[in-house]
């Protein structure tokens, strides 16, 4: 089963036991590389893959729930806010973190974000840990 899934999605890796599994969604592959490097450099977190659209992300989460999804706000087609809402409705146990290359002040107002959008350049291991610690209580 796991092999079969890996066969369909070769870039996605199985969730490591006991660690926080992270999926990243961004239409810029270059940033997915950077996100992967950050996740892999963070102890207790495991990278299960990166996808480039909201639709792909929904399909991936349906197949195997990650603990945390990093979602870029600006994406063609389904944007980050829409994806975040859809994930909250379908998988309330999955934690979503919104990220953006734009300054948070320049983002359109959305009740979902509630002012919590991370500037992409500030993505680093310490932030990942803090975010997870802050929200894990609500999820468990």
């Amino acid at each position, binding site marked *: 089963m796991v092999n079969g899934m890996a066969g369909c999605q070769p870039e996605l890796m199985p969730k490591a036991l006991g660690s926080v599994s992270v999926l990243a969604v961004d239409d810029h592959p*270059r*940033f997915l590389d*950077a*996100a992967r*490097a950050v996740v892999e*450099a963070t102890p207790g977190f495991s990278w299960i893959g990166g996808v480039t659209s909201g639709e792909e992300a929904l399909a991936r989460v349906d197949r195997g729930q990650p603990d945390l999804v990093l979602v870029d706000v600006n994406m063609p087609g389904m944007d980050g806010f829409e994806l975040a809402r859809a994930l909250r409705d379908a998988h309330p146990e999955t934690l979503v973190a919104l990220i953006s290359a734009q300054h948070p002040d320049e983002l359109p107002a959305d009740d979902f974000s509630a002012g919590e959008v991370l500037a*992409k350049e500030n993505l*680093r*291991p310490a932030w990942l840990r803090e975010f997870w610690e802050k929200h894990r209580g609500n999820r468990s």
Partner: protein
Amino acid sequence: MLTLVLSTISATVGLSNAAAPRQGASAAIAALTVAALLGVGLYAWRREGEGRFGQVLFATGLCWFVASLSNSDVELLYSVGRVAVWIFEMALIYALLSYPSGRLETRPARLVFAAAAVLVATLYLPTVPFVEQYPLPSPFANCAAECPPNAFFAGSEPAVLADVVKPLREGLTIVLYVLVVVVLSARIRAAGHNLKRTLVPVLGAGALRFSAAGLYIALRRAEGSADVMEIASLVAQLTIGAAALGFLVGLLQWQVYSGRALAGLSTGLAATRNPAQLRALLAQSLAEPAVELYYAPPPADGGARCWLDSSSEECSAKAETPHNCLAEAEAESGLRVCIVCDRGFREYPSFLRAVASCAISGLERQRLDAALSESLEDVAASRKRLAGTADGARRKIERDLHDGAQQHLVALRVKLELAREALERHSDSGTEMVADLAPEVDEIIEEVRSLARGIYPPLLASSGLGEALRAAGQRSHLAVLVSAEGLGRFPSETESAVYFCCLEALQNASKHAAGASGIRIELRREDDLLFEVSDDGCGFATDHNGEGSGITGMRDRLAAVGGDLRIESSPGAGTSVLGRVSIA
């Protein structure tokens, strides 16, 4: 001056006949009639279009001057005057029937005048040597009973004259006068309401005069009492004066009418926006509700002329009929106008020319206004497209920056932080990570460079069109040959417009000119800056209406710096994009 002299002579002759009753009144009427006929005749003579009638009226006035000598008590003058009266009657009939053109236009008019001439030539003039006394009393002579004898009398008066000729000619004269009155009345009835105002004073006074003259002859034949004859004589004299004044009033009426019409037309012209409004203005100014307006736009490239009515509906060309009159004019552009109005206006060609020339200038102005607003709309549309293009270009730059350099820098910043953390931990991977960042920075530099070149190529600013296009050509996958010898430099907006047009043409050729072996860009400085981007590819069928936004954008760019663009291509024969920018 001549008028003054002749009327003075006429008055003097009348006054000198001391024996005559009412000599003052007769002399005054005669002198005023001479003055009116000669004065109006001379005035009309000098006016374009009315010259012939002026001559007729002047000749009539001269006849009347000679006729007024019959007020004299000198035998010869009296006799000359009495004979001249007959000629004057004929001249007056001609003047009335030919008013206002000076020509006998209708068949009835010609017949009536011919009858008058035959009557005078057969039954009046040949009797001169055979009468001892001219018929008395006469409204032309102020001597009541003691008039001078006929100076041309040969010695014996045949009885046939008194028994046959005189009654016959008097009867025929009355018939002739009735015919004159009938013809004049018919003309008044037939005239359009505008021409009536100028015809009525002339023809009305003329009809009155001939009615009075006919009545006088009839009364004399019936041997009316002296009192009756005196009144009839006074009426006959006064109506001659009235007929003379009728010409003056008619002429003035026409002057007032034509002046008002042309003033109304020329003042209202600027406010007309279309041919229908112009027709309405013509109808109002000429007080001719039925006036029609037709026009033919300048024929395109030697094509057939197409006539339109005032509602701009296509129609056939108009021709003159017995019931109408045409006024036509043509502008330098080839635009033509044809105004169809009452046939009475035929008598006033100069007026018609003025009306048609007002109309053509109004139509020409309307045509130029329409052309101007069309080109202003083009300019506005072109400006809008340019603004849209500029906006689109800004959005593209923003997207390129966001998707390219910005994302790259963001990722770089994240990796830099990871490297810093690794170095802090003295991990070997930190050094590797820093080393990996160098090619990424190089990529970002090249990306920003390419973006800047797209906004404004640095080579264009520093070295001009030739160098910048050569550099652009080197980035093309086709061989590009640039020829720009001795081109020199131009204002930056000109160089930028030409550069981006050539670049667009170059990209089009690279994309679409299948089978092309190369592209040639040629730039020349003549009176204008000329450029040509040509390829030997597959070509296409040119269709100006169906050209893409890229070519419209090139046209707009060039138009903004006073240039234009032409595309020459056909399937299998390659494509040439030819541009020209004014550098004057």
